[in-house]
C-alpha cells in the first residue's frame, strides 16, 4: 500500500514530467539553427532562466548545501567559484562568441585558429568534460527516483532517459530551452520553500539570507554564534572560520571553479541562442540573478540544517538522542544508508562528536542536509514531494544541456565539419538527432555502470574546462597574435598538466592503486589539492600558447579580421547568416 507521501510525490513528479513533455511537443525543431541554437531568438531573460537550470545540476541542488554544512567557511569556494565564473563568462567570452554567431564552441576554435586539428582537439576536450559531467547527472536522476519514489535505481534512470529523449531529440536546443525554463521554476520553488520555512522556524525571519545573520527566535544569541559554539563543543572546527586547507588552496580552488565554469561548453552555447551581442551581456546577468537566488539561499540552508541536525542528535535533555525515540526521518534515511548509527558504548543514546573513537554517527551523508531538510523541520508532505521534483528537474535540465553540447560537437564539428562537409541541412539535422539519441543511450549506460572514476569526475570536468577551453577561447578573442601552433600546444599542455597532477595523486583514470604519489597535503604542489589544480593548468596553457606563438608565424590576415569583427557588437545579423 502506498503511503500518502509517496502518492503525493508520484503526483507532483508526474505532473512536472507531463509539463516537460507538453513543452517538447510544442517546441519541435525544424531546422539545424533551431536544433543547435533555438533559432537564435530567445529573449535574454528567458535565456537567463534556462541557463540557470542548465547550470545548476543535481550537485548544486542536492549536494552543495550539505557540503557547505560540513565545510563551513571552507565551502565558500563553491559559492564564489560557481557564481564568479559568470562574471568571467559575461565579460570575457559570451558577447564575442555570440557575435561570431555560429553553433558550437569547437567551431569557433577551429575558425579562429584556422585549423582542423585545433577543432578536433577542442571536440575531444568538450566530449571528455561533458561526458564526465553527464554521468553525475544520470546518477542523480537514478538516486532521486530510488529515494523518493522507492523504485529501482535502474527504472528511475530509464524513466529519466525517456523524458530527456523526448524533448531533446525532438526539440534540440529549442525544446531544451523551454523545458529548462519550466525546470528552473520547479527547482527554485522546491529549494526555497523549505528554506523559508526553516528560517522562519529558527529565527522568525522568512528570508533565509537574512535569517542566517539573525538572532535565534526568542533569544539574543545570533544563529551563527550558536552554531560556532555547539560545533566546537563537539570538537569540530569553528563553522564561520573553518578554512579549506590553506589560503592559497582556497584561492586556487575558487579560481579553478570560476575559470572552469566560464569554460564549460554547455553553458557557453546557451549564449548563442539570444538575438544580439547586447542581449548576451544582459542575459549573463539574468542567469546569475536566477542562480544567485539558489546560491545565496544554500549557505543559509547549510548553517540551519547543521544546527537542526545537531540539535536533534543531542536529544531533548542534551545528553544524546535516545535511539529508540529517534524521529521518522532518521529511520527512513537509515534504510537508505545515508545515516548510520553504531552504539559504541551500548547506552542506547546517540553520541555525535568529531572524535572518531567516540562518535556514534558513523555516517552522516552530506546529501541528507537537503533531502531530509523538510522532514527534519517537520514541513508538510507536499514540500517533501516538491523537493523530489526539484532534484529531478535540476538533474534533467543539466543532463539535457550537456547532451546537446555533445551531440552538436559530433554532428556539427566532426561530421559536417571534418568528415562529411557535403551533407545537406536535412541530413545534418537527422544526424544531430541520431547523435543525441546515441549520447543519451551512452550516458544512460554509464549511469547504470558507473566507471570507478565517476566520483571524481565532476571536479575533473571543471579542471579540464579551465585548463583547455577557457584559455583557448579567451586568447582567441583578446589576442591577435596567438596562432594555431600556440593554441594547440597550449590546450594540450594545460590538459596534460592538469591530468598528470590529478592522476598522480588519485590514480590513473582514478584507479587508486595506480597513484604513484599519495593524495595528501605533503605531496601536493604548494599544498594545492588536485581538484583545485585547473587554475594552474590554465596558467600553463596561457604561458605555453604565448611562448609557442612568439616563435611561429603569425595568424593569416583573414583571422586578424575575424578577431576585429567579433570585438564589435554591430552587424550580428550578417554573422548569423549561414
Amino acid at each position: 500500500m502506498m503511503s500518502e507521501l509517496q502518492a503525493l510525490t508520484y503526483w507532483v513528479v508526474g505532473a512536472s514530467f507531463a509539463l516537460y513533455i507538453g513543452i517538447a511537443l510544442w517546441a519541435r525543431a525544424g531546422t539545424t539553427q533551431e536544433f543547435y541554437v533555438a533559432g537564435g531568438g530567445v529573449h535574454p531573460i528567458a535565456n537567463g532562466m534556462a541557463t540557470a537550470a542548465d547550470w545548476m545540476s543535481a550537485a548544486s541542488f542536492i549536494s552543495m548545501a550539505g557540503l557547505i554544512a560540513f565545510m563551513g567557511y571552507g565551502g565558500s569556494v563553491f559559492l564564489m567559484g560557481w557564481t564568479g565564473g559568470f562574471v568571467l563568462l559575461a565579460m570575457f567570452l559570451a558577447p564575442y562568441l555570440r557575435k561570431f554567431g555560429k553553433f558550437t564552441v569547437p567551431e569557433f576554435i577551429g575558425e579562429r585558429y584556422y585549423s582542423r586539428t585545433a577543432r578536433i582537439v577542442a571536440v575531444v576536450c568538450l566530449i571528455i568534460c561533458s561526458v564526465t559531467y553527464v554521468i553525475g547527472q544520470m546518477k542523480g536522476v537514478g538516486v532521486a527516483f530510488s529515494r523518493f519514489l522507492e523504485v529501482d535505481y535502474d527504472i528511475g534512470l530509464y524513466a529519466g532517459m525517456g523524458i530527456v529523449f523526448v524533448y531533446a531529440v525532438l526539440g534540440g536546443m529549442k525544446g531544451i530551452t523551454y523545458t529548462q525554463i519550466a525546470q528552473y521554476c520547479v527547482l527554485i520553488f522546491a529549494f526555497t520553500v523549505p528554506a523559508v520555512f526553516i528560517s522562519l522556524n529558527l529565527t522568525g525571519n522568512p528570508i533565509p539570507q537574512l535569517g542566517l545573520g539573525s538572532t535565534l527566535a526568542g533569544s539574543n544569541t545570533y544563529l551563527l554564534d550558536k552554531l560556532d559554539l555547539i560545533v566546537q563543543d563537539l570538537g569540530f572546527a569553528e563553522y564561520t572560520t573553518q578554512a579549506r586547507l590553506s589560503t592559497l588552496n582556497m584561492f586556487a580552488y575558487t579560481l579553478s571553479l570560476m575559470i572552469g565554469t566560464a569554460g564549460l561548453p554547455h553553458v557557453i552555447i546557451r549564449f548563442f541562442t539570444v538575438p544580439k551581442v547586447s542581449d548576451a551581456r544582459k542575459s549573463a546577468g539574468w542567469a546569475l540573478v536566477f542562480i544567485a537566488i539558489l546560491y545565496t539561499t544554500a549557505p543559509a540552508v547549510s548553517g540551519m540544517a547543521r544546527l537542526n541536525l545537531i540539535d536533534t542528535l543531542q536529544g531533548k535533555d542534551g545528553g544524546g538522542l535516545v535511539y529508540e525515540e529517534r524521529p521518522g526521518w532518521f529511520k527512513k534515511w537509515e534504510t537508505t544508508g545515508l545515516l548510520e548509527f553504531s552504539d559504541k558504548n551500548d547506552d542506547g543514546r546517540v553520541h555525535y562528536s568529531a572524535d572518531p573513537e567516540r562518535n556514534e554517527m558513523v555516517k552522516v551523508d552530506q546529501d541528507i542536509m537537503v533531502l531530509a531538510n523538510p522532514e527534519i523541520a517537520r514541513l508538510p508532505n507536499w514540500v517533501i514531494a516538491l523537493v523530489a521534483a526539484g532534484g529531478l528537474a535540476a538533474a534533467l535540465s543539466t543532463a539535457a544541456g550537456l547532451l546537446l553540447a555533445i551531440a552538436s560537437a559530433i554532428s556539427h564539428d566532426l561530421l559536417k565539419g571534418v568528415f562529411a562537409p557535403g551533407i545537406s541541412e536535412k541530413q545534418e539535422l537527422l544526424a544531430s538527432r541520431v547523435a543525441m539519441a546515441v549520447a543519451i543511450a551512452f550516458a544512460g549506460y554509464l549511469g547504470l555502470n558507473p566507471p570507478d572514476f565517476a566520483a571524481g569526475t565532476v571536479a575533473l570536468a571543471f579542471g579540464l574546462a579551465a585548463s583547455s577551453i577557457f584559455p583557448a577561447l579567451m586568447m582567441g578573442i583578446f589576442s591577435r597574435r596567438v596562432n594555431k601552433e600556440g593554441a594547440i600546444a597550449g590546450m594540450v599542455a594545460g590538459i596534460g598538466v592538469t591530468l598528470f597532477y590529478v592522476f598522480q595523486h588519485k590514480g590513473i583514470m582514478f584507479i587508486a592503486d595506480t597513484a604513484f604519489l599519495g593524495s595528501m597535503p605533503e605531496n601536493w604542489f604548494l599544498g594545492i589539492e588536485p581538484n583545485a589544480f585547473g587554475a594552474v593548468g590554465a596558467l600553463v596553457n596561457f604561458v605555453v600558447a604565448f611562448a609557442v606563438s612568439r616563435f611561429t608565424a603569425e595568424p593569416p590576415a583573414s583571422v586578424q579580421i575575424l578577431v576585429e569583427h567579433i570585438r564589435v557588437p554591430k552587424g550580428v545579423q550578417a554573422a548569423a547568416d549561414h
Partner: protein
Amino acid sequence: MAFQSEQHAKAYWREHLRIMFALSLVWFAVSFGCGIVLVDWLNAFRLGGYKLGFWFAQQGSIYTFVILIFVYARQMGKLDRKYGVHDDE
C-alpha cells in the same frame, strides 16, 4: 569596418578594455580579496550576526557579481553607442 577610422577602432577597444579592467578589479576584490585573503581581518567586523569576511565569502561576493554584470552590460552599451557600433539597428 564598422568604425569611421582606424583611430576610432583603437580608441573603442582601449576604452572597452579599461571598463573590463576596472570591473575585473572589483570582481577580484570582493571574492579573492574580501572573501579569502582579507577574511580574518574582516571577520573582526560584523554585519548583524555575520562576521564580515564570512559574509563576503558566502553572500556579499555573489550579490556584487550580479550587480557587476549589469553594470558591465550598461557601460558597454553606452560605449557602443558612443562609437556608433551598437547592435540596435
